């Protein structure tokens, strides 16, 4: 029973990181109908930049802010420079483009940052909290991880639902043509949408790096698990993506705990394949069938 509790806490913590990635994928999908396979690689890149800032003696939090800001810029520039020209083309062009960005970033990273695996600092302790002699089975960093993703989600929710900027972004995503004839600068909204998504990805990168370490392909698995969560959630629904991603986190944690940690990634792929085969529209989606 105690082990179950430990696996559950681990699963939720990892699941929240996958949820940040899943939510970023959903935001980009809703705005531009593109799966951003480079989401993880972008996060790897921004995490390296944070590491450089921290290694130069700056406090962790400055590195944290720089990573998120860099994410915003990389996402926005990617949309404006690379995605915009393929937006009106067949969907396959965008798929190839985002895979190209993934390969490019993972190829450039070793040249810029070195290819070896590096450890990554945590802002708060990574060991379980102990209160009155009993362990609480959760570390301050795990609490920070869960809290940071929750806060990011809450802020995004408020921006999208409660501000006129959010209303503009939603209109641009739901119906770009109508938005344009109403005077909304749809291009800018899509650029901003990509920027915010990459910022969320950068957050996931910062939160994942202490446990998966930092190397050029360190976010590949995290991306697959986040993608699985997003697919389970139906790719359209932010709530579904978060629920799906936390579900994936829990499932992987139980597989790794009860069956063997080597099998965990395999479990993630297995879930993805099964979901794509049986319910490609996702568990939370009631819309029309989607091509996979």
């Amino acid at each position, binding site marked *: 029973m105690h082990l179950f509790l430990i696996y559950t806490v681990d699963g939720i913590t990892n699941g929240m990181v996958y949820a940040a990635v899943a939510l970023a994928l959903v935001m980009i999908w809703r705005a531009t109908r593109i799966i951003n396979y480079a989401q993880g690689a972008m996060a790897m890149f921004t995490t390296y930049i944070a590491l450089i800032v921290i290694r130069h003696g700056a406090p962790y939090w400055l590195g944290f802010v720089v990573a998120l800001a860099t994410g915003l810029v990389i996402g926005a520039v990617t949309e404006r420079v690379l995605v915009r020209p393929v937006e009106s083309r067949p969907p396959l062009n965008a798929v190839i483009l985002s895979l190209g960005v993934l390969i490019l970033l993972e190829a450039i990273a070793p040249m810029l940052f070195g290819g070896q695996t590096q450890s990554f600092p945590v802002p708060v302790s990574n060991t379980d909290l102990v209160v009155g002699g009993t362990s609480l089975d959760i570390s301050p960093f795990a609490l920070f991880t869960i809290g940071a993703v929750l806060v990011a989600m809450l802020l995004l929710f408020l921006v999208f639902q409660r501000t006129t900027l959010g209303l503009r972004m939603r209109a641009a995503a*739901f119906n770009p043509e109508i938005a344009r*004839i*109403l005077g909304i600068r749809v291009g800018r909204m899509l650029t901003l949408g990509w920027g915010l998504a990459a910022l969320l990805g950068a957050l996931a990168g910062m939160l994942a790096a202490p446990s998966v370490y930092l190397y050029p392909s360190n976010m590949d698995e995290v991306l697959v698990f986040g993608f699985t969560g997003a697919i389970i959630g139906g790719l359209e629904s932010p709530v579904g993506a978060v629920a799906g991603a936390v579900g994936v986190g829990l499932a992987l944690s139980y597989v790794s705990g009860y069956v063997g940690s080597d099998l965990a990634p395999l479990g993630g792929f297995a879930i993805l394949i099964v979901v794509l085969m049986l319910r490609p529209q996702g568990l939370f989606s009631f819309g029309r069938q989607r091509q996979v």
Partner: protein
Amino acid sequence: MLEVTDLTVAYGGVIALENVSLSVPEGSITAVLGANGAGKTTLVRTISGLIKPRRGSVMLGTQQLIGRSPEVIARLGVGHVPEGHGIVSELTVDENLRLGGLWRRDRADQRVAIEEAYELFPPLRVRRSVHASNLSGGERQMLSIGRAMVARPTALLLDEPSLGLAGGLLAQIMQRLVALVTERKLSVLLIEQNARSALSVADQAVVLSLGRVELRDTAERLAGDDALRHAYLGY
């Protein structure tokens, strides 16, 4: 004054509009009639910037609209009520109305304009926090026109507002529209397949056929001349 001069539009090699000229004076309605495929929707979509013409000019007052993007044309004062309403069904009625003038600087007047839209079409007020996907056809049309009016346009393009509406409701909406036209000095371009309804409110009428202006006259004369009506409008 909305003035279209020698507008030619082609899709690939296919000519959709050829040398179309028409004008809509302030405070008046010009109906554009014609069968399916005559180029009516192409005409409004070109005016609002969604289609780039091969040549020609569209002036709104002293501003040339051709060559500008749809978002700029909207800001210059062109309201477009697209075919099939064009409401954003994922958003609420109130959010749809707010979208109409989000670009405007004058926040206070924006609130006044939204309030006016609810006064123009009271059924919308009751449904303000409902998702637009739950609206009836008539409510959608009201929402679409109300939303265009929130931006305080000087020209209004209406693409087939009669589509899917019962006669009585359509007449009601048209009546409101006519009142607005004189009150706000609007230039209205009214695209219609339903010629009878359009001619009853329009001042001028243009008949399009295969992308060309086949006939232009006052709405009154066109509606009153049986031979013309039979020949061009089929009723």
